[in-house]
């Protein structure tokens, strides 16, 4: 299942029910799905990163402030972007919010178009992040399916080694190298060497040219 392809959801968190309701109605008119978060505590039990979305929350709330939640989200390494709203914003507050990684900051009441644009942009960012994370996870899964020999061959390949050279390095025949190469590209679900290098980059495999010498 591709989570990135799922419809976007805007999570609403505000202590004022009327504001939440009006926001739901506004976002509904542009076809955005909304879900209401009951309280700051509930936030972390929700599947926030399971589909593209954005968190729209007030700064000033009883018990937990929006800024505290922002910090907690960051600590839990959640990908979902947050947009903060405040009835009485000041520069200090805005700066703190942005420093804590808020996607945007709005003063209530806001211009609907600006809010919608910002929400769409944030959702897009989230979508890409989810996609990237999904891809990384699938690559990790595929990588784990490689045999030890295939991994060795792959490391040499992504460093641009010729099959003959690899065979020398691993004390195997060039033909065997070719077989391994075919198998590992099948397993990694890549069709070219370029794609393999891209996956390796994503996985953070060692590509450094200095380190190649050691392995030679």
């Amino acid at each position, binding site marked *: 299942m591709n989570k990135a392809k799922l419809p976007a959801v805007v999570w609403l968190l505000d202590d004022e029910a009327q*504001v939440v309701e009006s926001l739901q*109605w506004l976002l*509904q008119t*542009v076809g955005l799905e909304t879900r209401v978060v009951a309280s700051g505590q509930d936030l972390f039990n929700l599947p926030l990163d399971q589909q593209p979305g954005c968190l729209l929350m007030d700064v*000033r709330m009883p018990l937990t402030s929006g800024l505290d939640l922002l910090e907690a989200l960051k600590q839990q390494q959640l990908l979902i972007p947050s947009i903060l709203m405040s009835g009485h914003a000041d520069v200090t507050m805005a700066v703190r919010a942005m420093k804590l990684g808020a996607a945007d900051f709005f*003063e*209530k009441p806001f211009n*609907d178009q600006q809010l919608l644009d910002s929400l769409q942009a944030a959702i897009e960012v989230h979508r890409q992040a989810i996609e990237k994370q999904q891809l990384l996870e699938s690559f990790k899964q595929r990588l784990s399916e490689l045999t030890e020999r295939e991994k060795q061959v792959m490391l040499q390949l992504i460093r641009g080694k010729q099959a003959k050279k690899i065979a020398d390095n691993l004390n195997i025949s060039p033909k065997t190298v070719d077989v391994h190469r075919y198998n590992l590209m099948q397993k990694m679900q890549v069709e070219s060497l370029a794609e393999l290098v891209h996956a390796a980059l994503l996985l953070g495999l060692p590509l450094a040219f200095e380190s190649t010498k050691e392995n030679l």
Partner: protein
Amino acid sequence: MLGRSLGSLICFYLLASASLPTFANPVITLGILDWRDEAKAASSWEPTLAALKQQFPDKQIELHQLSLEGIADALAEQKLDYVITNPGHYVQLSQTFQLAPLATLNNPFFELAQQAVGSVLLVPVENQTIQTWQDLRGLKLGAVTFDAFGGFQLIWDELAQEGLDPKKDFVKWQLTGFPMEQLFDQLASGKVDAIIVRSCLAEVLAVEGRINLADYRVIGERQHSGYPCLTSSQLYPDWPFLSTGKPTAAEASKVLQALLKSREDQPAQWAAPLSYQPVYNLFERLRLGPFEAFPHNPLLNVIYRYRYLLMLGSGLLILLFAHHIRVGYLVRKRSQALETAMQTTQEKQQELAHLSRFAVMGELAAGLAHELNQPLTAIVNYAQGSQRLLQTLNTQTFPQQESLLAVTQKITIQGKRAADIIRNLRAFLRKGDRGLEQLEPQELLQEVRLFMEARLKQEEVELRLHLPEKTPLISVNRVEFLQIFINLISNALDAMQANSGKKIDVYVSESPASKYLVFNVIDQGEGLSLEASQRIFEPFFTTRKQGMGLGLSLSRSLAAAQGAKLELLPHSAGGVCARLEWPLVS
């Protein structure tokens, strides 16, 4: 010089031996007041002369019978060694000359030596019109001289005590001068209506056969027990024997020995000297002799008499007054300083009150903005959503689309305008000095104490500050820091109103890694309920009957504006700990 009396000077050359004086000062000169016939007078002093002659066999004793003025003149010329005169004259002379009474006349007729000299006013026995002092008014009186003691001054004293002034046309005076006996002739011849004579003179003359006592009557008669003569006055000590400054002490002692020595079964003519104070008192009453300068007005007299005491008194008064003025000045100066100090404090408090009022209004506006912004946000959201929906409709099928679109647009605009108004109000109230200073926490807390002093005293609460030895400087807006703290202390005081014990502790410490300076304000109050602790920082939430519920909310906003954090925690010992974390700038 010696006047009339010079002519009457009689010298007795009583030479003890034929040998002429070979001593440096072979003559002893005596001045005696001559008040009667010279011969009589001379004879009455016979025992004294004899005694002196015996004591000083080598010396020549000169006895001068002198008038009142004669004695004064002789004394002025230092011609006399010793003087015998009446008590009044002595007191008068003592004002000018140094006279020491060696002895007082010892008269065997008088039981008491201090009651010897008196005066008597006599009228002819046949004159019955005169009964009292008052009856003398307008009559003609005879006396020797106004200077006579027994011959005038004693009666004058009596008249003065009756309220009569003999010298002021009360009577006509016939002054004859000495000898005194001639007054009886004046009275007998009818030249005067009454006479003033020394007591006992009449008796002596009667004994001598010169008058008949029955021919006279006494006016204002007084009885003195043991006094044998007729008298109209008080009695005074007898005549003194006076030593002038001239004789040596040794000679005066020898003279005194002679005077006191009794001779030939006869008692001595002199006895130990008596006090002449009654005479001084009399002279003071009559303003005579030494008291002549004393004013007659009793008030002035008192002032004159006590002038040194009065001067001392007024000096003291002036000093007291000066002291009073000085004290007044100091008091004024100090109270002025106090007033200035109080005014400064008051101004400071007013300034703080003004600022906090401003901040409270800011907080009020912030609270209002928050509360009003929510519905406004909802309104604007609905309006904007409606706009979007309307735009999707077809004008053909929905002809009102355009006008509704315009209206929703207006709703949006008006909603935003309302929000702007609140925001502007808040911005206006929030603006002010936001300058930050690097300040010593200790000094700030002391300043807080100063501001709270009055309330702390009033509620008998002790504020204890616990600071580490060294605290880093903190970057604060002074007024806002004070506001936060005054708020916290004031809350603590409110919380403790029902309790006794009454201590507020402020602990200051650095957080690990010196990220914050932590202030813990711990009261011993009732603590917070769960509901209160959840809502305590909400604007308009309060546990008190009075109060707006803005203090903590404001304090938190003020703290937050400076990057600090304020929270309330329950304290283990009951009560509440307000924890303020102030960021430390590295």
